[in-house]
């Protein structure tokens, strides 16, 4: 479903955000990308969404070689994946329903499909009763549910989540994780960048740890930190 082969990304100014990353993620997997701030988690997601091109190496997402994709095909790539961000990225002037419907409108889905799919996905995220609210009338957790609904309404093969619980309190985060878990159980591959220890440790899913752009650990039922590195991590201080 996702494959990275020796991917390196060096930004102008010499910052190395990815360094020889090779990774394979199968269909239906749930993968945490963990690591301190600046370790390259977000860069990896940006590369997979073709928001940036790698300096070297190859990436495949849902059968498409991302780094060789002609620019006019990039929208097709993004339609086959869903993306959730820490800051929700909702349109403040649109209601919950409109925000989710927007994602279908702009890719030209017919109206009857929109009328059918939007209420369905709002039920899935538990916001059917708040369809007419504006984002500012919702809590942070509810706003993130809207953004997940928007990412999932088109039934993508893969869901990318970049720090989806970064702005939420622990209790709300649990709810969001339950939702992502439920989406994962429908067969959707979920890749989530996070530095929330509690969540990673509780879920016990595959963990890919990054440090200064390089993969330093890849465990199938991992924790946020491998046991030997705990004192080391404490020595470096709490990441963000």
């Amino acid at each position, binding site marked *: 479903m996702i494959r990275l082969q020796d991917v390196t990304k060096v930004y102008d100014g010499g910052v190395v955000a990815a360094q020889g990353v090779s990774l394979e993620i199968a269909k239906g997997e749930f993968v945490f990308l963990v690591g301190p701030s600046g370790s390259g988690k977000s860069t990896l997601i940006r590369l997979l*969404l073709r928001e940036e091109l790698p300096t070297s190496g190859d990436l495949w997402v849902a059968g498409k070689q991302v780094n060789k994709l002609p*620019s*006019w095909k*990039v*929208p*097709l*790539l*993004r*339609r*086959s994946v869903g*993306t959730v961000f820490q800051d929700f*990225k909702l*349109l403040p002037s649109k209601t919950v329903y409109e925000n989710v419907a*927007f*994602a279908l*409108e*702009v*890719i*030209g*889905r*017919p*109206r009857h499909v929109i009328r059918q799919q939007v209420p369905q996905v709002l039920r899935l995220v538990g916001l059917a009763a708040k369809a007419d609210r504006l984002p500012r009338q919702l809590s942070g957790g509810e706003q993130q549910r809207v953004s997940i609904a*928007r*990412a999932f309404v*088109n039934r993508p093969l893969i869901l990318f989540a970049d720090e989806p619980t970064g702005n939420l309190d622990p209790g709300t985060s649990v709810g969001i994780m339950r939702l992502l878990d439920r989406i994962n159980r429908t067969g959707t591959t979920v890749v989530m960048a996070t530095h929330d220890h509690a969540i990673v440790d509780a879920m016990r899913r595959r963990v890919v740890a990054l440090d200064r752009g390089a993969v330093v650990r890849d465990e199938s039922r991992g924790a946020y930190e491998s046991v030997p590195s705990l004192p080391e991590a404490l020595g470096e201080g709490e990441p963000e």
Partner: protein
Amino acid sequence: MRFQYLLTQTIQGIRRNPLVVASAIVAVLVTLVLVFGAIVVRWSIDQDIGRWDDDVRVIAWLGGEISPDQIFAMQEEISSWDEVEEVVYFSKPQALEEFRELFPDQPALIEVVEEDPSVLPDSLRIKPTEAGDYADIQNRVAVYPGVQEVTAAGEEIDALVARSNRMRTFAVGVFVVLGAAALVLIANTIRMAVYARREEISIMRLVGAGNWFIRVPFLLEGLFEGVAGAALAALIVSLGNKPIVQMLSTVTDPESIVVPVQFLLQNSLLVLAFGAATGLLGSALGMWGTLRD
């Protein structure tokens, strides 16, 4: 669905900042009114030139000592020149008749001429093939024996041709300078519209909206501004050209000048096409660098 969505987006974009949109429309309007106006005025000047074309242009006044045979030989020779279309002999009585027609309301003047026929001598009236050839013909005819004086309506024609050329220069100048200003104004409105919708656009990209899907509403907005300005300009010039044309015309009876509907229609279409092109181009210029893939 898609078409309706794009149209809704365009209308929203126009409503978002009506003053800025209005300024772009006015810029196109002013540019094209001046250009179209100049085209119409130039047309009326060219009509005047055409009127001169139909008349006898060079007149060779003949002395009394010249015999009819000589006059006939001269007429034959001059008509064989390339730059001459035809040569007509005008006798004294014919000249008098013409004089009477030209000044019917001045009997005193006619009386004077009737008393002394030598005031109006015989003449050869020469019609050049091309309007500009009169000076050449004038010089060649002047050396014939028996020709007293050669006159031509040269200066009047020259003035009209110069005026027509000035109109063209004016139209081109206005088109270049104000057209560029209109283009930049439209580009500016589009850039502001893109900026106002930047959040929406980033989300559209995120969920996989096609590039053209994002661009089309802005192109339509630019197109609307260009075409609206052009349509108003076409309307104003088509309906309101009369006073200006009559004021600038050199014809003795300006009331008779009516710009033909077909001419106005053809040029209105041209103006609309220029408006549309300006709108699309301005829009593309406005999106340049801000809406890349």
